[in-house]
């Protein structure tokens, strides 16, 4: 295996007023896990080698043909020792990360709630709505094996799950998203500004904003715009809003809104963004949400979606199969089915014009890169900071 770059230590993560506190040992645990994640991305390269050197030749010898479906390829790989070992370690590591993050946030659950409530008090920029519930597809699974998902509150005002998310993202991505874990938001806002300097959005919507980590860079890039982040997870909204207040943002609003049924006027946003959101929706809802996006986007407006890459014709069957790993093994079930959707067709079916469609690659901006975080680290598809972006002008 090639030499690895080292992830930054947990001391480098940016703190803010509502960020969960960590003891010496809790930081050490996170340092171990960040290193383990980097290590496992190297181990994962063995899967392709096992496929090419062992699994594929054995299948061809037995059946006189190559694999024709992902299912039969997956059945064969499932018996391979390296794939079993990497998968078991990968799943184990995700569970350890959750346990580590949850134990440290739940031990300070009430403190976090008190701090968040203080920052949120009297602010009209946090709009919760008891009538809005998480949709069925969010209740059916705990995305990325986060027990309780985005919406569970152990007591009124509990924000532990959001704080766990904020504290642990650094670990899962080995710090590659930067000290505020906002590399995705920085990448998209820089792309828009650099490629469309004439674009001056007045009203921007971020759908499925979670704790707002990717919303804030957009708000910073366009300080004159009104930026609204929506989500159905109350802990995420409470925590995200308090976090934005702590970091000094005055042009962001957080609202409890369900994306397929938004209370906004038609054509009332100049830019509608989603970041790693659609793969956590559902087979029917994705169309309903895209139609709502079309309705709410002003003529001449922009909508961009950062997502896992869709399957392409030149992607090998093996690559399509391995990119599905997180769907079934890291509780991201819609990830796989969504891969089969052509994003251009999805957008056209929801009203957008094919000739205004675009697809770009965006590398997350990492403000912690001191030159040692080389870009040639092997890609672990589920945890890579390099994303596909699709979208359209209206």
């Amino acid at each position, binding site marked *: 295996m090639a030499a690895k770059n080292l992830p930054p230590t947990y001391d480098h993560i940016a703190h803010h007023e509502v960020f969960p506190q960590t003891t010496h040992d809790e930081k050490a645990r996170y340092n171990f896990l960040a290193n383990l994640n980097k290590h496992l991305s190297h181990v994962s390269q063995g899967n392709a080698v096992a496929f090419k050197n062992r699994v594929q030749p054995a299948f061809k010898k037995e059946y006189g043909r190559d694999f024709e479906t992902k299912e039969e390829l997956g059945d064969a790989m499932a018996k391979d020792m390296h794939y*079993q070992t990497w998968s*078991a370690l990968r799943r184990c590591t995700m569970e350890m990360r959750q346990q580590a993050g949850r134990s440290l946030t739940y031990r300070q659950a009430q403190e976090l709630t008190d701090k968040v409530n203080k920052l949120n008090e009297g602010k009209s920029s946090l709009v919760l709505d008891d009538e809005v519930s998480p949709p069925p597809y969010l209740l059916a699974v705990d995305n990325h094996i986060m027990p309780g998902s985005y919406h569970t509150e152990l007591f009124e005002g509990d924000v532990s799950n959001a704080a766990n998310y904020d504290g642990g993202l650094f670990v899962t991505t080995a710090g590659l998203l930067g000290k505020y874990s906002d590399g995705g938001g920085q990448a998209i806002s820089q792309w828009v500004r650099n490629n469309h300097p004439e674009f001056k959005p007045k009203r921007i919507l971020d759908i499925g904003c979670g704790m707002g980590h990717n919303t804030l860079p957009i708000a910073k890039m366009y300080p004159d715009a009104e930026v609204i982040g929506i989500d159905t997870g109350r802990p995420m909204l409470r925590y995200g809003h308090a976090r934005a207040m702590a970091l000094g943002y005055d042009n962001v609003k957080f609202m409890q809104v369900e994306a397929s049924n938004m209370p906004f006027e038609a054509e009332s946003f100049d830019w509608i963004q989603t970041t790693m959101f659609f793969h956590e929706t559902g087979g029917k809802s994705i169309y309903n949400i895209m139609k709502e996006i079309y309705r709410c986007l002003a003529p001449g407006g922009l909508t961009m979606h950062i997502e896992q890459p869709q399957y392409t014709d030149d992607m090998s069957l093996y690559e399509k199969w391995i990119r599905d790993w997180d769907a079934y093994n890291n509780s991201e079930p819609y990830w796989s089915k969504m891969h089969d959707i052509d994003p251009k067709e999805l957008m056209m079916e929801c009203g957008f014009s094919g000739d205004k469609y675009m697809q770009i690659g965006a590398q997350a901006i990492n403000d912690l890169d001191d030159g040692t975080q080389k870009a040639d680290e092997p890609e672990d598809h589920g945890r890579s900071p390099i994303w596909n972006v699709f979208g359209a002008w209206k």
Partner: protein
Amino acid sequence: MDNPIDYIGIAGNKPKGQRPYFFDDPAVERVLNITMAVSMELAVARERVDTLERLLEAKGVLTREEIAAYTPTSKEIETERQQWHSEYISRIMRVVQQSMEDLENPDKSLQEIADDINKM
């Protein structure tokens, strides 16, 4: 708070859906999970020891013999150290906690959940 949260119990909760197992023998996979958790706690202890040694050396404070002879000097200290062991064991045994939760509340597999979600 009246009812302190059992943060270590909650920390190990299983997420929705059946846990995937990869090895032919799930018992082997459980052993791997326990071993990895032990590895992690060893790393944590090692980092702490490293910190201590560097600080102690820098301040010229302690000798190795004093460390070797130490015993807890109060019930409180004794309890703290035992509490640590108890939590440590819970961390290491996470995978067993989750399989017991599944025993009590058998779950759908992720394939079934994916099919459901595709219709939502």
